């Protein structure tokens, strides 16, 4: 009973938040609505008994990803209203619904039609975090290490791409140096 109430409440909240995210014309509203939706999604993970996944969802998505987005939005002109594509709305919504149902059917039908057995069944005596640790560090150790290397590569790529000229500090330079830098910037070819 309480599970049903919680499910419908959080389903409504999540759908409302994500609807705001894709329809609002203000980037800041979209960002905050997306962060709220991520928190509400972690509620589903807690309902489903995936406690560790829910905690990771809150930490990684609303802690790290949203912070990176908020940081990145400082570089962009976000006060301007966002223009939308003017297309046929019925075609867009219809195509999206069709594609989403198709994707779910592709993955769900083979699972429902055959009697699926668990590869790595849940050990009842251990908690969720312990179960996750046992499976992650035995069966999925190599993908785990590869994911770690991928995150390292992404971090280096992010620093290299976004950190250009970040060694220059406008507050520590003298007035002449700033003027010279501005002149050089004007000469730069904008391609």
């Amino acid at each position, binding site marked *: 009973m309480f599970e049903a109430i919680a499910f419908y409440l959080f389903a409504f909240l999540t759908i409302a938040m994500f609807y705001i*995210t894709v329809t609002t014309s203000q980037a800041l509203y979209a960002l905050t609505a997306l962060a709220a939706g991520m928190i509400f999604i972690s509620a589903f993970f807690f309902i489903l008994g995936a406690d560790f996944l829910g905690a990771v969802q809150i930490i990684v*998505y609303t802690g790290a990803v949203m912070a990176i987005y908020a940081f990145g939005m400082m570089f962009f002109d976000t006060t301007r209203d966002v223009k939308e594509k003017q297309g046929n709305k019925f075609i867009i919504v219809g195509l999206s619904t069709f594609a*989403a149902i198709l994707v779910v059917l592709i993955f769900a039908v083979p699972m429902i039609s055959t009697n699926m057995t668990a590869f790595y069944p849940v050990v009842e005596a251990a908690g969720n975090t312990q179960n996750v640790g046992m499976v992650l560090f035995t069966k999925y150790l190599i993908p785990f290490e590869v994911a770690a290397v991928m995150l390292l590569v992404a971090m280096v790529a992010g620093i290299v791409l976004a950190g250009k000229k970040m060694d220059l500090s406008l507050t520590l330079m003298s007035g002449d140096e700033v003027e010279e830098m501005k002149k050089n910037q004007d000469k730069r070819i904008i391609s």
Partner: protein
Amino acid sequence: MEIGLNHYLVLSTILFTIGLVGVMRRKNLLLLFFATEILLNSVNIAFAAISHYYGDLTGQMFAFFVIAIAASEVAVGLGLLIVWFKRHGNINLDTMSSMRG
């Protein structure tokens, strides 16, 4: 009323639809990234629900890897977006037609 796997799959479908609508109608690349986050999250819900109802931990493992991929995608994508914004002054999708396609 019992909440079953179908409820979660329907919810995941609805969220995936919202994300796809966002991908199709957004012109601003930053908001397009938001829509892709919605897509990844809807898939995560489906993974966690299937993992719970079949008593198998593989779904949760894949949800972890999806979260890791989403985090690295944000880092690289936002870096590229900042480079593009420094050069062109906007992140509008329609202006990215340098290949004359």
